[in-house]
């Protein structure tokens, strides 16, 4: 019990460095900006107050349209990205002892469900760009 207690204490001591770095980081930003605020002269002109865009004057409004179709595609992508999360650990064990054929079939059941999702998207016309 005493040994494990010691190990646990060491483990949490390791995190004190992380905490210290976080504190130093916050202090650094606060001191830099605070000092800048106190030391700099303020003489604003309209040009200085413009949004800085690589040296070019900003164009247009701050609201812009985004194509909603990208969103649907991103959504479909997420579905298939998540299937990879299941496929990778499965691929490492399904041939190991104690698993066997059932495990192989199970994954195809799972992929079958995803295929239904794709079928749904296809029939709803999501896969056509125009």
């Amino acid at each position, binding site marked *: 019990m005493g040994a494990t207690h010691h190990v*646990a204490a060491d483990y949490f001591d390791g995190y004190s460095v992380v905490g210290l770095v976080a504190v130093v980081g916050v202090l650094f930003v606060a001191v830099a900006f605070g000092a800048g605020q106190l030391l700099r002269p303020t003489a604003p002109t309209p040009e200085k107050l413009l949004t800085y865009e690589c040296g070019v004057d900003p164009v247009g409004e701050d609201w812009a349209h985004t194509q909603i179709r990208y969103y649907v595609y991103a959504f479909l992508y997420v579905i298939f990205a998540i299937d990879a999360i299941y496929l990778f650990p499965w691929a490492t064990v399904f041939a190991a002892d*104690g698993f066997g054929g059932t495990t192989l079939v199970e994954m195809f059941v799972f992929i079958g*469900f995803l295929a*239904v999702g794709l*079928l749904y998207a296809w029939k*709803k016309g999501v896969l056509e760009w125009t």
Partner: protein
Amino acid sequence: MTSLVQSVDWVAVAPVLVTALTGLAVLVTDLFLAPRHKPLLGWVTIAGLALAALCLIPLTDGDRATFCLTTGDRQCSYVADHFALAVQLLVVGGALLTALLSVTTVRREALPAGEYWFLLLSSAAGAALLPASRDLATLIVALEVASLPAFALVGLRRGDRGSAEAALKFFLSSVVATAVSLLGVSFVYAATGSLHLDTVAGGLDDVDPRLNALAALGVVLTLVGFAFKLAAVPFHFWVPDSYVGAPLPVAAYLSVVGKSAGFSGLALVTVVAFRPYADTWGPALAVLAALTMTTGNVAALRQRPDQPASAVRLLAWSSVGQAGYLLVPLAAAGYHDDPEEMVGATVAYALMYAVVNLGAFAVVALVAENRPGHRLTDHRALFSRNPLAALTMGFFLLCLAGLPPGVIGLFAKVAVFRTAVDSGLGWLAVVMAVNVTIALYYYLKWTALLFATPTTATPTTTPAARATATTAPAAPTPGTATPGAPGQATAPTATGSTVAGSTATAAREPSVPASVPHPLTAAIALAAALGVALSGAPQLILRLASGTLF
């Protein structure tokens, strides 16, 4: 080496599986179905849910378990004991009544049929899986399967800002609650090294003393996600807005099946998994119960009858109050030597509440056929327009209040009350008694409104009703099942000078909807029949309250 593949008892999981597969079948069928055939999907859903209910019959022995580990202590992840079966009956039956209510709504509000029925069935499948799961991972997955489709169901009315806002509010607060729950589960796992409920109970018995605080915190945080689904105060903020914004059948569904997911999850984690920490969750649940019933009933008391959607809002707040009663036996379990004995009272109460609350929502839907405002004042003098609907509504309200002739409501309340007294929670029993009295006021006021004389109908509702009367499609369904012949306005209660007034009202308003949809009538009839049957033979559900279900 022994096989690690867990065997599956297909009969045991049939109620859940049938519901889920029906949902999938409906979704795929919808893709290939011509629009004029879409109403078929509703009937497929109803048939699937009925089949799922039938699948419960071979399980009545309550001794099946499946998805068991093949090594070690052979813990099972799915157990079809009497607790699971009773809650599954509630869920499948509740979803069936909701589906009957929805048939008309889906057609009239032009909701996307395939998606609606698929989401309803998916959510029901999750809620049916929840009471049978015996490990924390399955519990959380079941909770989310029950919740995620519900967000979409609430927001399914296209172009309706109220519906979208309700769904967003419901979604954001629910996700936060689940995240907190998951954090709690991870703490419990860290302290005990297992997710199976029985092993967790064993592990919590002798937690490493340095992890005591972590385990206690994990226990409390895990309860949050389930308390949210039950709409226990302070996790109730989403309830009134979500119920009003959602299509009415979805509100009915959330108030019954959504709550069942909450209380069955709470019962499982507290009584089965976290039993050694009863001195932590017992007081927490007792305070939660007292807060929930008081807040729900006081807020229900403050509803103004002439506001839009006041009927739904009142039912929403009353459902918060009822959730408080559901929590009482669970809190009592924390103080009792034999906690499993207490849970039965919650299940019995929930079954009673499911029947009468769905019935009340169905009558609200019926009244909305003529006067779509969902106002309490729309129910004024319902007796003179449709005596049978008024009588059933009165019966449902009296059941909710716990007064005869709603015998079953009274007995279920007594069973809940007794658990509090038996386990020495005198103060909670007193709080509950006070709350039952508060609730009497608004339930009885609504009941009285049903039987009021028609002449006093507020003029604000009549133009709307008249507009509906003229615009309503005059498609008379032959053999409208709800009796209510024209000329009912000359009811026996109307005497002397009021007769003239009431006949005038009858001339302006249709005394009976142009066509009461059959599924709606069937839902009301089914709920009323169940309520009357239970009032005649309360032992049908009250025997759950005596003895252990696990």
